[in-house]
């Protein structure tokens, strides 16, 4: 060991040398992508709780020679401990369940169907991904990849991460980034579609006050959903089960200390680790491809089609039932809780400044979470 050699050896392992080496530009670009995600999160308010950790994880994973996302690196360890195993998304779902009030859905059950219709985006996008693979030579999504891309349309982060980590772990980074980015863009993506598909009269429809939901009903609800899921679709029970477990902790009223921890410290710790680990999947060779562009475009399509599906079913239901629904709440069926429900409320106020749709939109909004978990269950059962 002498001084010159030591400096040389350090120099060959600097990031500068790494970026100048063959393929190093890819890492540089990915670090820039990570910085952009962080900038979007901080300055533009794009889902900062997730995109800051994901962006930072992406930067760390692309540092030349550090091997943070390779075997033995700490992001590799976190990824395998928490995401490959499915634990982190399920623990996030536990916390989400403990934070969610299903009251608005229980008070107006039929809005659950809007949350079903909005899942159309998932399956349409799946077909789109297969079409793209067929007609664009540089893109080669198989059925598992297509399913993982489709789930972006579920507008639900943990579901997307859970499914993609099982079916297409290599695409996990881009899928999660697309899902969270579009969830942040919901206030921009949805309103034009909502206005296009509805008349001003429809947008002004006032809905009748939601009934009061008793404590007992709220306790029975998570059990009921779980039982239904067990009977119909066991492959969705990890997701639905943890969501309902969290909700039961919240509603039962006798384990508030567990419920509070699930919706605060536990979900925060897991969010930090999950974000970093998801970011560690932003590897240059996987991300800087035409396929990522395909995922971005398909993801946008997924959100648009899901929005349209929800709105159109609401209009159809108005044709069939006498109890009128404001079709603007249909768009909330994509989930993206609570952003999409707020969008419904805001667009509704434009047409009728006394028409507060927020609580009405929360019904399809939370139903959308169930809907996309069910869709994920179907995809897990049939695409594995």
């Amino acid at each position, binding site marked *: 060991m002498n001084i010159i050699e030591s400096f040389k050896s350090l120099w060959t392992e600097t990031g500068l040398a790494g970026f100048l080496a063959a393929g190093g530009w890819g890492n540089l670009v990915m670090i820039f992508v990570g910085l952009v995600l962080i900038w979007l999160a901080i300055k533009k308010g794009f889902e900062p709780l997730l995109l800051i950790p994901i962006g930072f994880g992406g930067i760390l994973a692309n540092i030349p020679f550090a091997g943070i996302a390779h075997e033995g690196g700490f992001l590799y360890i976190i990824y395998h401990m928490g995401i490959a195993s499915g634990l982190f998304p399920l623990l996030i779902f536990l916390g989400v369940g403990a934070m969610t009030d299903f009251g608005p859905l229980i008070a107006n059950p039929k809005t*659950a*169907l809007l949350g*079903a219709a909005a899942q159309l985006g998932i399956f*349409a996008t799946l077909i789109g991904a297969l079409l793209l693979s067929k007609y664009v030579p540089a893109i080669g999504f198989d059925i598992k990849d297509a399913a993982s891309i489709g789930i972006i349309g579920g507008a639900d982060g943990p579901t997307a991460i859970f499914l993609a980590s099982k079916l297409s772990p290599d695409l996990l980074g881009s899928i999660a980034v697309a899902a969270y980015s579009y969830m942040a863009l919901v206030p921009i993506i949805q309103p034009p579609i909502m206005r296009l598909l509805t008349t001003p009269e429809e947008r002004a429809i006032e809905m009748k006050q939601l009934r009061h939901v008793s*404590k007992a*009903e709220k306790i029975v609800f998570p059990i009921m959903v779980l039982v*239904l*899921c067990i009977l*119909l679709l066991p492959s969705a029970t990890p997701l639905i089960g943890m969501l309902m477990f969290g909700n039961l902790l919240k509603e039962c009223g006798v384990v508030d200390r567990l419920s509070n921890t699930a919706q605060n410290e536990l979900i925060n710790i897991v969010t930090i680790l999950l974000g970093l680990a998801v970011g560690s999947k932003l590897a240059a060779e996987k991300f800087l491809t035409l396929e990522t562009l395909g995922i971005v475009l398909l993801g946008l399509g997924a959100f648009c089609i899901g929005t349209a599906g929800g709105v159109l079913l609401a209009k159809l239901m108005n044709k069939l039932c006498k109890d009128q629904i404001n079709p603007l709440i249909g768009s909330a069926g994509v989930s993206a809780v609570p952003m999409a429900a707020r969008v419904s409320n805001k667009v509704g106020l434009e047409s009728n400044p006394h028409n507060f749709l927020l609580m009405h939109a929360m019904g399809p909004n939370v139903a959308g979470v169930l809907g996309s978990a*069910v869709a994920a269950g179907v995809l897990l059962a049939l695409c594995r």
Partner: protein
Amino acid sequence: MAEGFVLMVVGMSVVFAFLGLLVGAMNLCATFFIRFAHWFPEAPAKAAQPAQKTDDCTAIAVAIAAIKARIG
């Protein structure tokens, strides 16, 4: 491709079946809980609490007694 359409038909059917059945179940449940609302006085989870409350009162009484004893 064909697989995609199959998945769409099957997937949307299952999603609608699931949430449709859930609508039915919620309606049944609502009927039940509205019909038998008197069986479920609001805050049913509190059932276990009165016992504890007495215990806590006891605990407070004990504490007061203990303080008195220590002072006196």
